[in-house]
């Protein structure tokens, strides 16, 4: 793991996109995050975004080959500013990448049975029965800690 380099107020990591570089980078971000006293969730988001950007540099800019990568992190008032730079093949359509379709179109959202789903998800066991006198009994159980 390289030492945390600090130029003025900027934390800089510079290296090659060789085997293991994502782990190195991640350890660097961890150190910087601690030095800057960012919260755990914020550090987690930084790891995610920097990891993805660096992986893209290797995979797309350098087409899986080795290449130079620079990461700069700067804290300015209530903001963490991050810059990931590579010197690989440029492809000007990066901004036009579509969002993956994970959530369905709203028109397809069908809410029949929503109440029942809430009951099942909120409880650990659910049993619907017809009582001998007509009518219903909903028996539910929740394990508590």
């Amino acid at each position, binding site marked *: 793991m390289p030492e945390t380099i600090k130029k003025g107020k900027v934390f800089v990591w510079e290296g090659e996109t060789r085997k293991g570089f994502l782990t190195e980078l991640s350890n660097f971000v961890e150190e910087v995050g601690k030095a800057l006293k960012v919260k755990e969730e914020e550090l987690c988001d930084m790891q995610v975004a920097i990891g993805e950007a660096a992986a893209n540099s290797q995979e797309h800019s350098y087409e899986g080959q080795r290449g130079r990568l620079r990461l700069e992190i700067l804290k300015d008032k209530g903001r963490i500013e991050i810059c990931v730079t590579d010197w690989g093949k440029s492809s000007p359509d990066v901004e036009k990448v579509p969002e993956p379709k*994970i*959530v369905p179109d*709203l*028109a397809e*959202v069908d*809410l029949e049975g*929503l*109440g029942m*789903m*809430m009951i099942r*998800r*909120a409880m650990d066991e659910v049993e619907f029965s017809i009582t001998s006198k007509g009518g219903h009994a909903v028996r539910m159980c929740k394990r508590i800690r």
Partner: protein
Amino acid sequence: MEISEKAYKRSTLIKVQGRLDMETSPDLEKYLNKVFKKGQYKVVVDLSGVDYISSAGLRVLVSGLKSARRYNRGDVRLSSLSPRLKDAFHLVGFHQLFQSFDKVEDAVGSF
């Protein structure tokens, strides 16, 4: 349940106070439809005063969302959900359908 309204330059803020259950949700539905009828489709619903939402309340919000987003004319965004409300949205995955903000200013400013 009480509903109040505040007009902003680019959006309408609707503040709901009380429970959003089978009994009260129809009132919110009527209110939203009234706002949409006036051509206001950019709506923020401030839920800071709501500590319980049932499937009926969730349905009204989703149907508002559908109306608002039709023809790309607007959106229903949420603000200030309490931990209990967040739990209810997560239980059914609806946090994925709505843009949600901690602060009313951010929600209003997002349009």
